[in-house]
Every structure is written in C-alpha cells, then in structure tokens.
C-alpha cells in the first residue's frame, strides 16, 4: 500500500450497521481503501462509499463491532482495493479478504491488480463457441456449456447443487484437447461443512492443485462478501488472460452476496427497489457476471458457474430474476425430482443455454445435436402437459399417441436426466440415449428433425435395437 499519501484521522462521528462516518477529512477519494484500527489495536479494512469535501462514509469489511467514536483511528491509503497475484496462487486457500489460511507463505506478487477490474471492450470479445463436455446429459445434450459462458445453477435450500457443481468441476473438459485448466472457487457465506465438502472433493480428485479457493464462510463478516467474488475474478482474469489458462469460476452462494448488498443499502438509507434490494443490484451483479468471457487473440477463457438458492424456490425472486437477465442461460433444479430420487434434479423445461447454438453441431458435437435437442424439448413438454391433464381427466381419455408421450416423459426422466454422481457420459452416449428415447415415438412425430438425420441416426433405420 502506498504510504506517501496516507492520512490518519480519529474523527469518527458515527458508526451504524456496516457503515462508519469520518469527518474533518480532506482529499478523500471515492472508492479508496481505508485501514481502521480499533481501540484494542485490531486492524480492519474498509472502503469509501461516499466522499465529500470534509466527510467520508466508509463501509467496513470485517464488521463494525468494537469500533467507537473516540479512539478508533482511520488511515486513508490513497489506493483502490488491490490483490497480489502470481501463478503461485494455484493450490492455495485464502479467506474472504485474500489472506492465506492454509498455513502457507504469503504470495510473492508478480502483479498487484485492482479488484474491480475494467469492463472488457465488447469489440475485443471473442464469441464463445468451444463446447465443454461436463458429462451430464441434461447440460451437454440440452443446455450446452461453452468456454467463456456464464451459466448459473438456480437451486433451492436442501437441493444437491454442491454435488452437481463439484461433479462439473471434476468432469469438465474440452474434447480432443489437452490444455491448462484450473478452478477458482469463491465461497460467499456458505457453511464450514459445505466448504469442507468442496475442499475434500477437490483433494480426493487431485483438483486442489489446480484450484484457488477464496472462502468467506457463514460466520465471517457479511460485508466482506462484497469483495470476495472480485478477488476471485481478478485472480481468474490474471490466470486466463495473462497465463493462458482456461478457468472455471464457481461462485457460491450469490444469494448471500445479495443479502450483504441489501444490508449496506439499508444502512445507507437508500430508496429500496423490489423486496428491499437496492435499485442498482442489476448493475452490481453485472459487474461480477460480465467478467466471464473470451478475448480475441488470447488463449485463455473464464467460464462462470454461479450458484444461488432461490428463496422459497421462487424463480421470480429478484436474485434469480436479475441473474437470469445477465447470465447466458440457467440450470434449474427441481424439488420434485429430488424427492423422486432423480439426480441431478434438473428440470430441463425452464433451463436454457443461450450460447448453445454456437457450440454444437458438426465439428463441435454432432450434426444432429440441435434437431435432437429441439425434439427432446417438445416431446418432453408434451409429456408433461399430458401428465397434468391425466391428473384431472384420467388416462382413459387419452389417445394411444398421448400415452406414448406420457411414457416418453417418464423414461426421459429415468434414463436421460437421471445419472450417477460419478457417471461421466460422453456426448455420443448422451445423444444415443436421446435417440433411443425418441424412437419410442412414431417417425411422423419427429417433425423437428431433418429427415436426413433420421435416416442416419434413428435406431430403427440403423438396424439397431429400439429402447
């Protein structure tokens, strides 16, 4: 930190919630980092939220407990928030403010970077098109992930989103290529138990050596959560765009992040938007999510997989809602499937991958992939519609074709959606299961598939067995 411009004050006039007001200051810059010394000598960090000629409002990251208006001293550093980075961060575990907590030495920085970064020039972006095989049928087959995408998992309390995220981190690969790959794991307000689950899973599979972890746990100060994802993403940008690595960033749990945002807004007395969340939450979330991507002429990439729990499984809640407007699709977990024992409990109907079209097809996955996906969606949606209908009118009122669709929906869930937690399905395997299911339907129903592909891939046409 710069020393020359530093100024120290003991003129704190107000402490409330996560905020602190310092008066009689001069030359305080908006956004600069402050170092706070509590009366007992403990050091904390904060950031200027509002700068006036002689007054500054500061958000304190490590909590305002024990701060007072007499003895607390505040030093303005003249710097924005920064993080030291080097290739040595791989395999390390940090707390939510970037201090190592794995007992290892501190990082000898190769570079010190501003954690807020800068927006990627849209003109410099490379459109993401490289298919990532996750080995999970509902994702690879129907909501394909590509390098540089941001694809969140919308979950609910008690659903296995952690297992799914760990499985994706374990299995994700790009076909036919051996390239530098690493995971940046950012925890915001998750429990020790959840954090341990990831650490152990990474250790067991050897992924920890290729991972950087930033852990802000449930009992860490909530306001710290505002910076934790930015530390992770700054590190990711360094590894991706300066060290040519392909980075998967797992962010969990965004719901906790947004709660912290709301806490600060409330403490400042801002005009609340929907459900008390600040009106700028969209912009704030965008400053996290938009840091995914590819850059022309650079080898590396940043793929984001944020996770959030939808309060009361409500997809229209501001957190999933604003997220869905920024991210390139979403994977939605469904409580009913979890109850039925289907893993991963992905309900494909509300799921989407916006970058799928560019990542699939000939030379990427397979030529029939797009058509098969369309057909699966429409057939499964028809099956689900009929299932609702049967609940009212009974199965007798249905035609034979309707009954076939019902059976299709059941088998789709049992055979396509359902898979083991360590089952790594190739895209070929996923498409094979899909064709077997589709072959239940009369060929005239396969309106979304090019007749050429039916000729080439339909099990009956190939002389293969039907499912």
């Amino acid at each position, binding site marked *: 930190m710069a020393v020359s411009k530093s100024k120290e004050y003991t003129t704190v006039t107000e402490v409330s919630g996560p905020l602190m007001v310092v008066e009689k200051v*001069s*030359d*305080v*810059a*908006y*956004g600069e980092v402050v170092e706070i010394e509590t009366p007992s000598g403990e050091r904390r960090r904060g950031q200027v*939220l509002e*700068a*006036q*000629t002689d007054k500054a409002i500061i958000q304190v990251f490590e909590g305002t407990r024990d701060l007072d208006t007499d003895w607390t001293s505040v030093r303005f550093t003249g710097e*924005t928030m920064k993080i030291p980075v080097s290739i040595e961060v791989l395999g390390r575990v940090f707390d939510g403010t970037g201090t190592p907590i794995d007992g290892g030495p501190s990082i000898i920085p190769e570079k010190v970077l501003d954690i807020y970064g*800068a*927006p*990627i*020039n*849209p*003109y*410099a*972006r490379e*459109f*993401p098109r490289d298919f990532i095989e996750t080995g999970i049928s509902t994702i690879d087959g129907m909501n394909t992930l590509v390098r540089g*995408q941001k694809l969140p998992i919308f979950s609910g309390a008690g659903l296995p989103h952690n297992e799914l995220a760990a499985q994706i981190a374990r299995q994700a690969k790009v076909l036919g290529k051996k390239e530098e790959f690493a995971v940046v794991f950012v925890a915001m307000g998750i429990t020790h138990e959840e954090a341990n689950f990831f650490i152990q899973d990474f250790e067991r599979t050897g992924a920890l050596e290729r991972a950087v972890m930033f852990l802000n746990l449930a009992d860490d100060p909530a306001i710290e959560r505002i910076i934790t994802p930015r530390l992770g993403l700054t590190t990711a940008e360094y590894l991706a*765009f300066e060290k040519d690595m392909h980075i998967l960033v797992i962010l969990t749990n965004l719901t906790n992040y947004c709660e912290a945002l709301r806490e600060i807004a409330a403490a400042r007395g*801002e*005009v*609340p*938007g*929907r459900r008390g969340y600040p*009106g*700028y939450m*969209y*912009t704030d979330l*965008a400053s996290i*999510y*938009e*840091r995914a*991507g590819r850059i022309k002429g*650079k080898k590396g990439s940043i793929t984001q997989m944020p996770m959030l729990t939808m309060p009361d499984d409500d*997809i*229209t809640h501001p957190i999933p*809602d*604003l997220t*869905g*407007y920024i991210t*390139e699709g979403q994977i939605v977990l469904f409580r009913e499937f979890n109850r039925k024992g289907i893993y991963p409990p992905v309900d494909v*109907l509300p799921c*989407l991958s916006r970058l799928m*079209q*560019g990542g699939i097809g000939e030379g990427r996955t397979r030529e029939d992939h*797009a058509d098969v996906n*369309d057909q699966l*969606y429409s057939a499964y949606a028809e099956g689900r519609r009929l299932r609702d*209908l049967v609940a*009212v*009118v009974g199965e*007798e*009122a*249905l035609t034979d074709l309707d009954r076939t669709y019902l059976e299709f929906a059941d088998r789709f869930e049992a055979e396509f959606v359902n898979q083991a937690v360590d089952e790594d399905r190739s895209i070929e395997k996923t498409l094979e299961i899909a064709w077997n299911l589709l072959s239940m339907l009369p060929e*005239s129903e396969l*309106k979304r598939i090019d007749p050429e592909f039916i000729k080439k891939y339909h099990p009956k046409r190939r002389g293969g067995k039907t499912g």
Partner: protein
Amino acid sequence: MTEKGIITRVTGPVISAKNMRGSRMYELVRVGNERLIGEIIGLDEDVATIQVYEETGGVTPGEEVISTGMPLSVELGPGLLGKIYDGIQRPLDLIKLQMGDYIKRGVEAPALERDKKWEFAPVAKKGETMGPGDILGVVQETKTIEHRILVPPGITGKLLEIAPKGKYTIEETIAKIKTAEGVKKIQMLQKWPVRTGRPYVKKLDPSVPLITGQRVIDTFFPVAKGGTAAIPGPFGSGKTVVQQLLAKWADADVIVYVGCGERGNEMADVLREFPVLEDPRTGELLMNRTMLIANTSNMPVAARDASVYTGMTLAEYYRDMGYDVALMADSTSRWAEAMREISGRLEEMPGEEGYPAYLASRLADFYERSGRAMLNGKDEKIGSISVIGAVSPPGGDFSEPVTQNTLRITKVFWALDADLANKRHFPAINWLQSYSLYLDGVKDWWHKEVGAKWEKMRNEAMSLLQKESELQEIVQLVGPDALPESDQAALDGAKAIREAFLMQNAFHKVDTYCPKEKQYRMLEILLKFNELMYEAIQKDVPIERIRGLPVKEKLARMGTVPDAEYQRRFEEIEKEMEAQFKDMVG
C-alpha cells in the same frame, strides 16, 4: 470556456460541484483530473449535480470540473455505417487500439475518422437558394447507401460556393451559404445534441409494413415503417433473438442497434455475424447498413441513458436523408433502471417501484421521435424511423411500470411468453395477448403487393387460434375425447397453424427468413387443409384417419423449403393434400 467548478461530493456515478454558476442543464462537463465525461442533471444556486459517464473510483472532492458550454452531442457525417460505438459515441474499435482489451477511463477518440477522404459529388448549383434539408451533394457511403449531405437545420440563404466533384475529408468546407447572419461554411461533419429531436415538416400516417421475414410478426402482428413496437418478456423468452432477427432481416435501409445494459457476448455475436451475413434484398453485407451502440451491463450506468439518445439521433440523421431507418433498443428496462439509479442517488422522491416520476414522460419523448415524416428540403423527401424496444419486466410480470408505460405509447405489443419458450416454441410471441394497431393501416399494402385474401386469412387463422384456447379449457376438464369431432378438428387445425406457421426456427438457414409471398402461400395452404378437414368430418370421415394423413408431415416442414423452389413444391403439397382427402371422402 474556462469556468471551473470544484467537486464537493462523490457518490458512485453522481457527483456534486460548487462554483458552477453560469452552467446550463444537460451541459457537457469534464470532471476531475482525468477529465471524465459528465453531464449536468441538476442545478441549485451554484451547485451542479453531474452524472458521470465513466467510472468514478479515485475521484476526490476538491478536483476541478470544467464546463464546455456544449450539450452532449454526436458527430454526424459519412463513415457512421458499420461502426460500433459506446453510449457516448466513442468508437470501440479505436478504444481497443488505444487501450487494449479493457475499457479504461479518460479515453478520447473521434467518432468519425478525420483523415479519410470521401468522394463527394455536388448536386446543388452555385447561386441557388438553399434551405434546411436541401441536398448539397452526395457521397456513396456504402454500395447501397448514398449519403446525402444536407443543409443543416437553421441555415437558409444563397449558395455562394460548392465544392467540385472530388475527394474531401469531413472537415473540409464543401459549401458556403450566405445567410442573414453572414456567410456560413458547411462541412460534411455536423454535430447535433442528442437530447433534441431533429426537425421535420410533419408526421405522416404509417401505411407500409416493415417486413421482417418473421411470420408471426408480418402476418399476425405487423409493425409499420415509422411505427413503434414493444417486446416485453421474462428472461430466456427470446427478446434478444427477436431483436437480432429484426436487425438482420427487416427491410429498412439503415439499422441502429442499441445494446443498452445487456450482455457483452451478445454484442460479440452481432459483431461476428453481421460482417459476413448478406441482406436478402440487396446482397450487401448487413454490417454496411448497421450502426451498433454497445453499452453493456458492466459499463458505466449513466452512459446507458445517453446510449438510447445517441442511437435515436443517428437514426434521425439518416431519416432526414429520406431513408427508412429501424432502431432496436435492447433493453429499455436497463435504461429505466439507470434513470432509477441516478434518481435514487439524487434522493428524488420516488414514483412507482422506486422509478422516478418522470419515467413515463421520458419514455414517451423517446418513442415519439419515431414516425414516418415529411422532411425538410425542396425535394419533399419522406423518411421513417421504426422503433422496436425490448422490455425486461422483473419476474416476467407485465404489470410493472416500465412495461405499462411503454405499452401506453407503442402501437404494437409482442408479448413473449415463458411457457412457450419452455416448450421451445420460438419466437415465443403469445398470439392471444399480442396486438398490432397497424393492421388497418397496412392491409391495403398487403392486398396490393401480395394477395387480396390477406386480411380475411389472417382473421380466419386468428379466430381458429382463439377457438383453440377456449376448447383447451374444456379439454383440461373433460379430456379431448369428450369433444365432438368438429371441435377436435378445430384443435388439430390450430395446432397445424401453430407448429407450421407461428413457430419459426431462427437458426435454420432457410426458415430464419420467410419472404412475404411465401408466408401468404403457407397460410393459404394451412387454411385449405383446415377447410378440407371440416368437409371430411361432415362426411363422417373419422378424425383418426385425417390425423394419419402423410401430407401432414410435409405441411409441418413448409418453412424449411428453400425460397427458390417453394412455389413449385407448395403446389405439389397442395395437390397431394387434395388427393389424399379425396381418397378418404370419395
């Protein structure tokens, strides 16, 4: 101007500065040591409130604010087409050259190239009396767009000098006009403040449809050239895909695409596709008729507000030359949110859901700059601006303020539906909720240009779809078998229209664009199928047999029949259909 203000307060994108007496509302200022670009949005005695179009981290009270005496303006002239700009018209390609892959602060780059020479051909003659909107000369900007250099608004007088045919930069004087206030030198480069609409003579009623090649739009809910349309929908319902389809295929001369607070990768997609795709009408590359304004969600929030006005001013400039311009704004909700954020920082009294009370009037002002207009100039040019605004209602709830205020102004409503999107029915435009108030206006055009049965067929198809939704309610209670066969036939007929006509595959190389004549024929055949089905039912043919007709599969695939052969192939399908019905009945 050397007036200097002093910053007193910084909070996010809004700063206050004192010592600003003499400044005007919406004046452009430079803020702080890095000379960030800002705009005055409030004045109280000598204190000005300024929204800053760049990141304000590190700005310190005590730094200076410099007035420029100018409102926020855009540069107009040859060289706009094919460009990608940020919200305040800085060219992103030049920014990349100067600053690398990230957008940093304090960048200065001219919107139009200063040293490029354009081939200018004079049209006006020396000695003529010229007024605003009169053509001085032309520059062939791209193969299809002739850039007309007009006398700027406010200048009238005798043409003293006009440059001979030759190559000029945009800053060289190409004409001198003797006005009452003295001799004015005119360059190809002109400036115009973004928040002021450019003048025209009068607005005309829109009567020509903007053909988009999207069946559900052109046939069912058409927008007219000079019209306005709103396209609200929850996330994932395909707003951006529809907007991009329209930007690709709409038969406007010039397209302005404003990406306001949306995804960076989407802009990258447009930038990847448009320079290689061809305009189906002219064969020219799409990029050569397009201007892109990209202010992605992570770029400074205040510039979102500027970006829609910047886009509109560029659109007006080409309209003034007599072109049909279409402007897509994706998404106006992000613009409204930017207003809300700034308003919140100003601690203004909030209106509905925290949006400022002036939300409705700002939206109305913006959409009212659209329209088909008789333009200034002696040649009585007519030009138009069609505006298509995407709206992103929170939770997909159309009752929220931005959607409601937009619908009060726009004449076409394309309601995107999450249920349709979940079933992968795209474009997910709900045919029961949507409407177009241009139907009466454009029907004569359709009847004259395409076919006399257009209105009748459209109404017939709509009532069939309406009937389907009523019958569906009964089916939900008693099951489809309980319906009489004629009603079951109505369900089948509506289903055929939905699947073959309303659904359109944006990613299929043929289906992505459906020419108007082909749309007409498709609907004609589908309605004929419906008619034949009724006749058969009347003659006691069981509906199961009709369901098994082989021609049904061909009907479902009509959209993918290549444009060059559809006439012949549709004829065959029609004959086949008639023959198959005849076999059953006879």
